């Protein structure tokens, strides 16, 4: 995972259609778009349609004379285009429903990740991290992500508040990252 800032040189290559830069651009934003779209759409086909349309519009706009010109706002622009495509998807799915209150494709707030994020090695790291957690914390994660219990019920059952859930995930994530980087990201997943 590399920190990515979009500079003028990158922007020029992207606008010129340089294959390697275009591939990088799509790879970089693909996962972000999937995470975003999976929090709003259930249908894999709808997610794929919106994702593809977003990339198509962004790349077209980049090559147009009147399109985006500021490399620093590239990420924001991708997000904005995705929002527009999403709105159009909602509208085309049902003209008569008001989106905010009655989404046509109910959001699945659980973020399911791609197979591309999972390898034997990453599972081993995560197993190590989970083994280091208290039994209570492991059971909290199990209750939320496997049993899919309502978080209010989980908090009540385990005597914690909602902030505790964020802190728990944060610490586990940091430990996982440290463990992964300690091994130099062997068997890297596709990102």
């Amino acid at each position: 995972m590399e920190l990515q800032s979009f500079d003028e040189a990158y922007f020029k290559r992207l606008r010129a259609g340089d294959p390697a830069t275009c591939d990088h651009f799509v790879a970089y934003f693909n996962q972000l778009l999937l995470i975003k779209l999976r929090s709003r759409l259930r249908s894999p086909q709808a997610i794929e349609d919106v994702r593809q349309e977003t990339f198509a519009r962004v790349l077209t706009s980049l090559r147009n004379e009147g399109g985006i010109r500021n490399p620093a706002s590239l990420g924001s622009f991708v997000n904005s285009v995705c929002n527009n495509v999403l709105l159009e998807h909602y509208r085309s799915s049902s003209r008569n429903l008001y989106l905010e209150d009655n989404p046509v494709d109910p959001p699945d707030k659980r973020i399911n990740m791609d197979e591309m994020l999972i390898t034997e090695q990453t599972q081993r790291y995560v197993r190590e991290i989970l083994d280091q957690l208290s039994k209570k914390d492991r059971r909290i994660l199990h209750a939320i992500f496997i049993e899919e219990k309502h978080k209010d019920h989980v908090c009540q059952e385990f005597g914690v508040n909602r902030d505790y859930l964020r802190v728990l995930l944060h610490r586990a994530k940091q430990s996982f990252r440290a463990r992964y980087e300690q091994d130099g990201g062997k068997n890297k997943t596709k990102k």
Partner: protein
Amino acid sequence: MTHFEAIEGRLAEGYLLGELTTEQREQYEEHYFGCPGCVEEIRWGAMFLANARRVLWKLPDIQGTKDETF
């Protein structure tokens, strides 16, 4: 929104847990799509969760009685 505010508020974790309000979620997305540091937070969190779901599913000793001592 600044990167500092996002980190302080643990917004990446809230986002992945589905804990943010609609407004917070939209503000955070507007921010993190353009913030390399927050993109990292989201990616590591997503990677951890994807693997944790798989591992937790297989853990044999995770179920316990409610009044078990932790």
